């Protein structure tokens, strides 16, 4: 099934004239994300990191004018292990020049639905909804404008009494993972307009209600997070501000601050073309295609047996 899926994915992109690229898995620097830890590697006297995604290399390729590109290969995240996580996993990441996030979501839909019909002869139901609407529906709360106190009180009222002093982003993650995610409709669900505080490297904008939201979306398949995408931030200065803010939060959480990628910064100064990009968990897609609930069932050698 894995081999069939890989073949299908490569054919899909070949037909769309998206070029396969092979960026390094090992690099001197890594992401600054508060909640993503990189695995450190030693090479002689120097140290580096196994890449948590090919994003930075692919953005350098985009800035150099390579056009539409995809990567199908391994990524690594430290201390992520469970029924849906393995520290080494297979990621499908692709970028489409001149696409906005909605065009990219449409392409993900055709890629995922194509995999279902080709491999198991079925079609998942597809739903689109905004992050704000999910919260309004499940919790009668506007996640973009609610005060921190209101979010904390909602977490406590939902039975998470130790969450009274958590940050905005953590309260949102808790409520989303515990309350909203399990109640998502079956099939493929796109959730767009993530909160500005969780923009990562997506652009932000004022929505029709005047709220600042990010042009970030996620895809879920039967309530399992499958993909995360952005209408990509292009402003080098804003990107540096976000990296610095990440590091400020990391320091506050007693995690080491991470050096930023100077090559990426230079590429951003030259200019990233207007594009959207997404990373999709291939093992998670395989789990759904095989109808299994543990990632170990689609890995030849899960970490416990490596």
């Amino acid at each position, binding site marked *: 099934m894995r081999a069939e899926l890989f073949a299908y994915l490569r054919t899909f992109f070949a037909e769309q004239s998206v070029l396969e690229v092979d960026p390094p898995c090992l690099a001197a620097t890594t992401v600054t994300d508060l*909640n993503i830890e990189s695995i450190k590697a030693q090479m002689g006297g120097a140290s580096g990191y196994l890449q948590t995604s090919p994003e930075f290399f692919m953005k350098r390729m985009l800035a150099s004018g390579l056009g539409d590109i995809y990567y199908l290969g391994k990524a690594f995240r430290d201390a*992520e*292990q469970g029924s849906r996580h393995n520290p080494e996993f297979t990621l499908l990441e692709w970028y489409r020049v001149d696409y906005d996030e909605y065009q990219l979501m449409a392409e993900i839909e055709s890629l995922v639905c194509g995999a279902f019909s080709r491999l198991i002869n079925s079609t998942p139901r597809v739903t689109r909804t905004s992050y704000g609407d999910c919260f309004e529906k499940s919790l009668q709360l506007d996640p973009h404008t609610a005060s921190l106190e209101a979010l904390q009180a909602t977490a406590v009222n939902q039975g998470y009494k130790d969450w009274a002093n958590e940050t905005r982003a953590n309260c949102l993650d*808790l409520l989303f993972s*515990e309350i909203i995610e399990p109640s998502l409709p079956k099939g493929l669900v796109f959730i767009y307009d993530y909160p500005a505080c969780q923009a990562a490297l997506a652009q932000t904008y004022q929505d029709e209600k005047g709220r600042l939201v990010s042009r970030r979306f996620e895809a879920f398949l039967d309530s399992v997070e499958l993909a995360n995408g952005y209408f990509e931030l292009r402003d080098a200065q804003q990107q540096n501000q976000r990296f610095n803010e990440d590091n400020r939060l990391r320091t506050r959480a007693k995690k080491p601050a991470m050096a930023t990628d100077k090559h990426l910064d230079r590429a951003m100064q030259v200019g990233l073309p207007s594009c959207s990009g997404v990373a999709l968990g291939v093992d998670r897609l395989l789990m759904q295609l095989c109808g299994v609930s543990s990632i170990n069932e689609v890995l030849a050698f899960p970490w416990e047996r490596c």
Partner: protein
Amino acid sequence: MGNYSTNEFRSGLKVMLDGDPCSILDNEFVKPGKGQAFNRVKLRNLKTGRVLEKTFKSGESIEGADVLDMDMQYLYNDGDFWYFMEPDTFEQHQATETAVGDTQLWLKEQDTCMVTLYNGSPLSVTPPIHVELEIVETDPGLRGDTAQGGSKPAKVVTGATVKVPLFLDQGDVIKVDTRTGEYQGRAKD
């Protein structure tokens, strides 16, 4: 007792939660790609037996509970306490009625039970899965009726009442499954 971080959580680990000792039954790692990681943990409160769920932020740590499961020999009951002995050290422990609970219905002197110690004193007692007990009181046996079903209540030496086949009599020794309280068969002498 040391502290345990969420990445050390595994089933069987004994921890303190809201002042009560608990045993971890299940630990699920939950993490939104870009977001905060959680551990959704199922625990059994060892005092009340109740199962509860709690979501921890990954990396949080909680205090371990000084809880130890140990096989001990049941000695006797003095009316207030039940006494158990460690087979190696001969050290004796007295268990309260709360700790012994319904297990008292199956406690026969000299049987080996699992005693759960919390801070050194018995928190709960688990009887052996199968016990052999003598019938002390039942209606007279019907000798001819051995094949067909039909049962009657019989009181055994430890005080429990077990449904047994009609042919059994006072003085017979039977084997009982303590998890269900069901008759398993006659003990072979």
